[in-house]
């Protein structure tokens, strides 16, 4: 018998809401299969099974907020008989084989919001204005309820998307506030910056992309991630966790990738084993990660695994970022926008595309000298893009 519990998706997470089940009692699941959706302060995420087995009980009803560690699912091994204790959870969605109930069935729960096809933005809006999704008519794909279908009741002023409401303390904001306050309180940061010419890297990238269909195009962001992962091999003390007063280096490089949320705040799911992935694989994973972040389909494991974080400001960003370490990690790498700058190339000053790479690292674990070597290694890797 195994259990799946409400995971802790960050040092500051105390509880989460079970949004929807993706399985029913009696289903076979394999390790890594998605069994349900969990909503935390930061995002909706997929809850995975960590074992192979058969769903014995779904303990928590959709819509229930429970503390971290609460048992959500009980599973049994393939050979084991079903649990004899009455299932305390919800009736499984869909045509489930009805076990002979020894007790009168519990009153039906209200139609869970999650059984209705709907976009995350629509669900969020519906919650904010207190509308039942069941009462709405969906106009999205397959009849899904999308944001435009969710209108505030007429007594409320219509939501005009011209000027955003002043920021309020959203759950994402609260989570960021807690983690960043802890970081600045506990971690003695030091900061380094290094301007890197991307002339070779971007010329190589343009040549490479010119030969490819658009679906296989590589963006500079993937190149920067690849170079970061390789440079970490040389300076391993930037990769790992500070736990209980000691540094625990990580053998694996799981790159947390900061993604700005258009609804405010940011989230940094990890690309697992980034150092072992080719440039093409990293690009695909990055595309997938951004798409799933937008769709609210990140996996719980991706939220907890990052051994270091990378934040890229992107095309429309400013020239440099001085990032704050995400505890219990011990370093964060930042990239400003790629900008043309005057560059001394031999005896001439010529325009080069450049990026300012920054490093914020934990002084309890590393020093400026080693941090500087990391930025140099990053620079070197980017000067030989064909090897990336």
């Amino acid at each position, binding site marked *: 018998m195994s259990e799946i519990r409400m995971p802790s998706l960050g040092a500051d997470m105390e509880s989460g809401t079970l949004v929807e089940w993706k399985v029913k009692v009696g289903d076979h699941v394999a390790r890594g299969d998605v069994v349900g959706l969990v909503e935390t302060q930061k995002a909706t995420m997929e809850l995975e099974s960590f074992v192979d087995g058969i769903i014995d009980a779904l303990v928590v009803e959709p819509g229930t907020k429970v503390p971290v560690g609460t048992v959500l699912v009980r599973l049994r091994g393939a050979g084991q008989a079903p649990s004899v204790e009455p299932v305390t959870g919800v009736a499984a969605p869909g045509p489930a084989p009805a076990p002979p109930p020894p007790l009168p069935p519990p009153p039906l729960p209200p139609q869970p919001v999650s059984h209705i096809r709907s976009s995350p*933005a629509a669900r969020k809006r519906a919650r904010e204005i207190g509308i039942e999704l069941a009462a709405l008519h969906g106009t999205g794909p397959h009849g899904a309820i999308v*944001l435009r279908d969710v209108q505030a009741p007429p007594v409320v002023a219509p939501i005009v*998307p011209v000027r955003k409401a002043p920021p309020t303390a959203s759950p994402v904001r609260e989570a960021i506030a807690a983690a960043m306050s802890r970081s600045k309180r506990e971690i003695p940061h030091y900061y380094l910056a290094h301007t890197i010419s991307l002339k070779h890297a971007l010329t190589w990238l343009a040549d490479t992309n010119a030969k490819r269909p658009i*679906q296989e195009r590589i963006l500079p962001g993937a190149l920067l991630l690849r170079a970061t992962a390789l440079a970490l091999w040389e300076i391993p003390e930037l990769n790992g966790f500070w736990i209980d007063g000691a540094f625990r280096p990580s053998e694996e490089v799981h790159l947390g990738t900061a993604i700005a949320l*258009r609804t405010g705040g940011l989230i940094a799911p990890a690309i697992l084993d980034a150092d072992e992935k080719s440039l093409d694989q990293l690009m695909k994973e990055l*595309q997938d990660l*951004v798409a799933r972040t*937008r769709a*609210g389909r990140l996996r719980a494991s991706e939220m907890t695994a990052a051994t270091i974080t990378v934040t890229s400001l992107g095309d429309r960003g400013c020239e440099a970022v001085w990032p704050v370490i995400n505890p219990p990690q011990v370093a964060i790498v930042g990239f400003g926008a790629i900008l043309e700058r005057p560059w001394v190339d031999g005896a001439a000053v010529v325009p080069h595309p450049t990026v300012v790479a920054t490093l914020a690292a934990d002084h309890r674990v590393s020093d400026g000298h080693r941090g500087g070597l990391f930025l140099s290694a990053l620079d070197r890797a980017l000067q030989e893009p064909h090897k990336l």
Partner: protein
Amino acid sequence: MTALADQILATLHRIAPDVDPATVDHARPLVDQLDLDSMDYQNLLAALSTEHACPILEPDIPKLRTIDDLARYLETHGSRPTRTS
């Protein structure tokens, strides 16, 4: 053209469900208007290229900034739209 624009908006909504297609101005650059990042935009162009059997060439990418730009490009360069919904 309008049908094509609607299809592009449907693709956009699939790639970025947090964007409400109804609010999109067809003549304004999408990236600025909707705060799309480069990966969102790459996902959009790749999906449109696949769905409309329309190769999008690297040098053309900077010219494709608005819904109107995209609709014109797909109409000129694409085969019949493959998606009907």
